[in-house]
């Protein structure tokens, strides 16, 4: 007689994995200083990919950025549109729990395989990395991975020198992007009102640059150094790279990337203010018909589509109050019929994947061609 299934071993409540060991990729130059093991990631607040498919995870609790070699490099070039209803419920079910006990903190799409990856947290803060293959969610193990790490330590460790018990620094990592060999990180302190912006060369070595960014509030002719950056992207105009940052107190500010150097105080130019009660969630760029646009999702407004050219046209003045654009309208934008977008990322050159809370309260994961944007 075939035996009944024995009671499953419920005691083994360890965070283990479903998939096999991750094999190193061929990115040997990028991953040559990686080690294999358990990085003991404590939280995942931000995810972003390098163009080579290296995944960067921002861990606020450990105040550390991890680079992970996922071994997920085979291009599958799936052309299938994503359209999954009840996505949060699906994630919860896959974790054996209910939707009120999980949080999807971030999403990033693998640039080569086009696979969406999700940072998920449970009630007790267990960080989980998941990916969507077809319609199936997979757990990506974080305890046996090929990785390197970079601690977001303070440049000057004042507290350490007088022997005081120094509380472990937590940096609430508000955004994380990879651009041209550098990992860019914006972080907020949970104590003083301030922020740091770091530019970390990758592969990680011992160096990281602390740029001090000052923004000019054109609306009232005033400089402001300390306001924290909520989200940012790197945009290219006339062959020059700019950091475009959105601040907690609503301005959108441009900084020339080549001026962001260690210890150098850089003044940025406000290109728009977004108005009260709203803050940007994600900023991404895409190209269509030879033009570059960027999309910005917001807490209280639809997704805004902005032509890079319109920003380029406002670059005359860095420091003078310019009434025409220093108001809520600022740079011209088009509101797309996309509201309550919680997460958004490019999927290849011609698609955008987004997580949306619909008016009925459902959370859907969908992809959309940039042709329709």
């Amino acid at each position, binding site marked *: 007689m075939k035996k009944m299934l*024995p009671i*499953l071993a419920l005691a083994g409540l360890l*965070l283990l994995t*479903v998939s096999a060991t991750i094999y190193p990729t061929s990115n040997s130059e990028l991953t040559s200083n990686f080690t294999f093991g358990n990085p003991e990631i404590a939280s995942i607040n931000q995810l972003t990919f390098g163009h080579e498919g290296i995944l960067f995870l921002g861990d606020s609790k450990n105040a550390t950025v991890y680079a992970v070699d996922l071994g997920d490099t085979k291009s599958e070039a799936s052309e299938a549109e994503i359209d999954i209803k009840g996505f949060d419920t699906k994630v919860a079910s896959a974790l*054996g729990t209910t939707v009120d006990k999980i949080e999807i903190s971030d999403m990033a799409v693998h640039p080569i395989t086009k696979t969406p990856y999700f940072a998920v947290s449970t009630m007790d803060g267990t960080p989980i990395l998941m990916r969507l293959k077809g319609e199936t969610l997979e757990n990506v193990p974080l305890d046996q991975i090929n990785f390197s790490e970079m601690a977001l330590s303070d440049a000057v460790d004042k507290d350490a020198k007088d022997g*005081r018990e120094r509380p472990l620094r937590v940096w*609430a990592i508000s955004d994380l992007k990879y651009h041209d060999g550098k990992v860019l990180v914006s972080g907020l302190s*949970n104590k003083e009102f301030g922020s740091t912006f770091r530019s970390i060369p990758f592969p990680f070595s011992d160096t990281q640059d602390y740029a001090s960014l000052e923004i000019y509030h054109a609306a009232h002719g005033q400089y402001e150094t300390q306001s924290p950056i909520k989200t940012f992207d790197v945009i290219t105009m006339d062959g020059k790279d700019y950091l475009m940052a959105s601040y907690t107190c609503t301005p959108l500010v441009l900084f020339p990337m080549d001026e962001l150097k260690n210890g150098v105080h850089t003044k940025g130019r406000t290109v728009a*203010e977004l108005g009260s009660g709203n803050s940007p969630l994600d900023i991404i760029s895409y190209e269509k018909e030879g033009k570059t646009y960027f999309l910005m999702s917001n807490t209280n407004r639809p997704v805004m589509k902005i032509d890079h050219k319109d920003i380029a046209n406002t670059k005359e003045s860095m420091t003078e109050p310019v009434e025409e654009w220093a108001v809520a309208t600022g740079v011209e934008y088009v509101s797309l019929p996309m509201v309550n977008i919680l997460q958004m990322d490019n999927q290849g050159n011609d698609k955008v994947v987004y997580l949306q809370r619909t008016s009925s309260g459902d959370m859907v994961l969908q992809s959309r061609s940039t042709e329709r944007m």
Partner: protein
Amino acid sequence: MEYTGNPDVLGIYMKGEIATAVLGTFDASAAKILFTPAVPFTPGQDYEVREAGQKLSDFSIPAKTVALAPKIMGIYPAQDSVPENLLKIYVHFSQPMQYVGSALDFIKVYNTTEDKEESIFLALETELWNRRHDRLTLWLDPGRIKTDLIPNRELGLPLKEGNAYTITIDRKWKTAAGQELTETYRKQWIVTAPDTRKPDVENWKLDAPSSNSMKPLTIHFDEALDHELAQESIGIYGLDGKPIPGKRKLNKWGSTLHFTPSKSWKKGNYEIVVDPKLEDFAGNSLHRLFDENLGNSTRTNEDKSDYRIKFKIAAE
């Protein structure tokens, strides 16, 4: 229904869930099949074991009982009156709180003078918790506090001088272990005039003990200071530049710091060294005001890395 012996079609499901199986690993190498979920099973949840969609068995995870009910230990500033330009508050909990959802879902602010609910705090995707997840920092919307920014022009300051407010923290807020708070917590505020002065160490008053004692050095600030920063921004040094080890205790109002040395005070000269990042309730640091018109700026010491106060320990 009996198990047919094919682990490939086995699955663990939440009770009532049809499509998505629980992620985890099956180990069929031994006589028993061992399933390890990707994250621990949820206390109080029912599960089913299915093979090719057919239920084989079910099991439940017992709900967790925690001996100590979670509480709010304090809200800072602890004062009943706060300045109109208050920048941030801290909420201390007795246990680590839940890592899901938004803190602002559990915190309501009611303007009792104008009889309406107000939204005064800044919503952040990455909330500002400490590492243990038992202390939350909330900012009052900085865009509304800074003069002439659009949120300030459209909505005005988050708090209005002369108005009274009630902060309510819902007991439905759960701990990381899933237990609700013991009770709904309320705190009243009367809003006073804005604080438009920087803290000034020149105006701090000291009570210095005499030598050969372990009595605390008491520092009376010129105004109440940030509850967390006041505990970590102030160091005591001998004139040789060496730090004096000891314990700091801030009073609940943030107005007085007691420093008790680990060893008896020795007669001589000392220095209090203060990090300029130290802020008052309105986010005015030692260097600069939070909201400042550059036309008449008081930013004079931007390059100063610390502020120093000399004091003397006299012979007993």
